[in-house]
C-alpha cells in the first residue's frame, strides 16, 4: 500500500543495523568446529587439553542456560539443579555398574522433566522474582541431597576407576585428547539440539516471549507451554554437561554438582560471551575456564587470593567496556577487517535494543 507519508523522511532502512540476531550460518559453524577440532593438536600439553575439556563441558551447560536465560529471557540462577541431575543420575547408575553412555542418556529426559516440573509453578513469576525462586529451588535440592541418605550426602560420591575405553568413558590421564573429542562431540550434539529448537517457530516464539509476554500471548503463543519447552530442553542440555563432567572428574558432591556458584558461573559464561548469541556461551566458558585456571596457577600459591582479585576485576572490566559480551568486542574488532576483505556482513551484530539516550537502570 502507500508509504506512511507524502513527505520524504530519513529512510528507516538506515536505522542501526539489524537487531534481529540471526542464528549462525552453516559456514560459521563449520569454521568454529574445525578450529575446535584442531585445538588439541595445536596445543599439545595436558593442561591445555584440560582447559579445553572443561571449557567444552561448561560451554554445553552455558549453551543450555542461554536457551532459557538468553533467548527465552527467563534468567535462571538455579541451573546447577539440572547440571546436578545429570551428574548425580550418571554417578548413581555408573556406580550400579551401568554404562555411562546409557546413564547420561537417561539423565537427559529426567532433567527435562525436572526442569518442566520446576517451571510449572515458577514461570508464574516474573523477572527477578523468577530468578530468586530458581535459586530457592536449587538450594532446597542442594540441602536435601546434602542431608538425606541415599545420594552420598555431604560426602559426595566417588565413581569407580575402571578399564580405559570409549565404552566406559574413561581414558588415560596422560593423553587427554579422547576426553576432549568426546566433549566436542557432546557439544556438537547440544548445539545442534539448541539450533534446531531456535531455528523455527519455537525460536521465534521464545524470543517473542522474552521481549513481551502479553504481546506474545496476543499473537496466539501459549506462553507457559513454550517456556516449559525451552526450560525442558535447556535442562536436558545442562544435564548432558553434568553427566560428562562427572565422568571426567569421577566425583560429585553437592557443591561441585549443585552449588549456587555453579549456577552463577553458567550465567556468567553466557553473559561474558554474549547473552542471546549462539556461540557466546562457549566463548564465555572458554575464557572463564582459561582465566580461572591461569590465575589460580599463577597467582594463588601465595594464599593471598590474587587470583580472585584479578578474576573479579576482569569480570567488572569486561562488563563495563562491553555489555554485549566478548563476542561483540570481537565483532567490533573484526568488522573493519571483514570490510577490507569485502565481506562486510555481520550476521550476529546486535546492539542492545536502542534505548533513550538518558540513563535508565
Amino acid at each position, binding site marked *: 500500500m502507500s508509504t506512511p507519508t507524502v*513527505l520524504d*523522511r530519513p529512510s528507516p532502512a538506515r536505522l542501526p543495523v539489524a537487531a534481529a540476531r540471526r542464528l549462525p550460518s552453516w559456514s560459521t559453524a563449520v569454521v568454529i568446529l574445525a578450529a575446535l577440532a584442531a585445538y588439541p593438536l595445536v596445543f599439545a600439553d595436558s593442561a591445555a587439553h584440560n582447559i579445553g575439556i572443561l571449557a567444552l563441558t561448561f560451554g554445553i551447560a552455558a549453551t543450555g542456560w542461554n536457551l532459557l536465560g538468553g533467548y527465552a529471557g527467563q534468567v535462571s540462577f538455579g541451573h546447577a539443579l539440572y547440571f546436578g541431575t545429570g551428574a548425580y543420575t550418571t554417578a548413581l547408575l555408573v556406580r550400579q555398574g551401568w554404562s555411562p553412555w546409557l546413564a547420561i542418556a537417561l539423565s537427559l529426559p529426567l532433567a527435562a522433566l525436572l526442569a518442566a516440573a520446576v517451571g510449572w509453578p515458577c514461570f508464574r513469576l516474573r523477572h527477578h522474582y523468577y530468578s530468586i525462586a530458581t535459586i530457592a529451588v536449587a538450594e532446597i535440592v542442594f540441602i536435601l541431597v546434602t542431608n538425606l541418605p541415599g545420594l552420598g550426602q555431604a560426602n559426595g560420591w566417588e565413581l569407580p576407576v575402571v578399564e580405559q575405553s570409549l565404552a566406559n568413558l574413561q581414558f588415560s590421564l596422560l593423553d587427554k585428547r579422547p576426553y576432549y573429542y568426546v566433549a566436542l562431540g557432546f557439544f556438537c550434539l547440544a548445539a545442534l539440539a539448541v539450533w534446531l529448537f531456535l531455528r523455527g517457530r519455537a525460536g521465534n516464539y521464545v524470543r517473542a516471549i522474552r521481549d513481551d509476554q502479553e504481546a506474545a500471548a496476543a499473537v496466539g503463543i501459549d506462553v507457559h507451554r513454550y517456556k516449559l519447552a525451552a526450560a525442558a530442553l535447556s535442562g536436558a542440555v545442562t544435564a548432558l554437561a553434568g553427566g560428562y563432567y562427572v565422568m571426567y572428574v569421577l566425583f560429585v558432591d553437592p557443591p561441585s554438582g549443585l552449588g549456587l556458584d555453579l549456577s552463577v558461573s553458567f550465567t556468567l559464561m553466557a553473559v561474558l560471551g554474549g547473552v542471546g548469541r549462539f556461540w557466546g556461551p562457549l566463548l564465555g566458558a572458554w575464557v572463564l575456564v582459561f582465566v580461572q585456571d591461569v590465575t589460580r596457577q599463577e597467582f594463588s600459591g601465595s594464599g593471598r587470593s590474587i587470583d580472585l582479585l584479578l578474576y573479579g576485576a576482569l569480570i567488572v572490566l569486561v562488563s563495563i567496556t562491553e555489555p554485549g559480551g566478548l563476542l561483540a568486542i570481537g565483532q567490533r574488532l573484526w568488522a573493519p577487517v571483514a570490510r577490507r576483505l569485502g565481506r562486510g556482513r555481520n550476521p550476529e551484530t546486535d546492539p542492545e535494543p*536502542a534505548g533513550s539516550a538518558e540513563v535508565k537502570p
Partner: protein
Amino acid sequence: MLTVRDLHVDYAGVVALRGVDLRVGAGELVALVGANGAGKSTLLAAVSGLHRPVRGTVTFLDEDVSGLPAYRIARRGAVLVPEGRRLFGHQTVVQNLLLGGYHRTAAEREAELARVYELFPVLAERSGQRAGTLSGGEQQMVALGRALMSRPKLLMLDEPSLGISPKFTKMIFEVLAEIRRAGTTMLLVEQNLRAALELADRAYVLQTGEVVMSGPADELAASDEVRRSYLGL
C-alpha cells in the same frame, strides 16, 4: 529567550536533525509542526538536554546551554512536558507535583501548588491518588501541573493532546491559553494542527529534520503547502 542555531542531532549515526535554526522570543507561543518522525520530539529533547546534539548551539536566556545535562537546563527554567507524560506512577499526585518544584523553597512550592490546584481543581481532589492509576486526561493535567510547579520561563510541550478525549483536549488548550496570558513563553509540538496554529503566534514546519517553513501561525495555516501536506485539505 531561546535561540537554536544550526542544530544537528543523530541517533547512533542516523541523522534526525540537520541544521535547524529556531528562535522563541520572550512571551511568545511558538508551534512546531511536521509529519511523524520529522524530528519535533528530537528537537525538544535536544533543547532540554535529554539528547546531546552533534553540532550547533542552543542559547537560552543569553547563555549557551548546548551539551549541558537535562537537570541543569531544567534548573535554568526551560522545562519540558515530555512525550508520554512520564509521571512517577508509584508516587501520589501531590508528590509528583512537589517534585516539579523540587528546587524551590517550601513556601514557594506551597504557593505554586495552590495555583496549580486552581487551574486543575480535579488534582486537588485526587492529590492522594497514585499517579499511575489516573486516567489519561488526568495524567496529562498532572504532567502540565508538575511542569508549572517550577514556574518555568520557557515551557515546552510535546503533544499534550495525544490520546486525550476531545473534551479534555479542549480544556487543555484553554489552560495553555491561560498560562500564556500569565506571561509564560511556550514552545508547543502538536499534531492537532488546527488548534495549535490557532493558539500560536508563530510556527515552524519541520520536515526530515529540517525547517522548511516558518512564519506567523495564521499565515502558515493559510498557506497552500501546509493545508495540503498537513491539514489534508
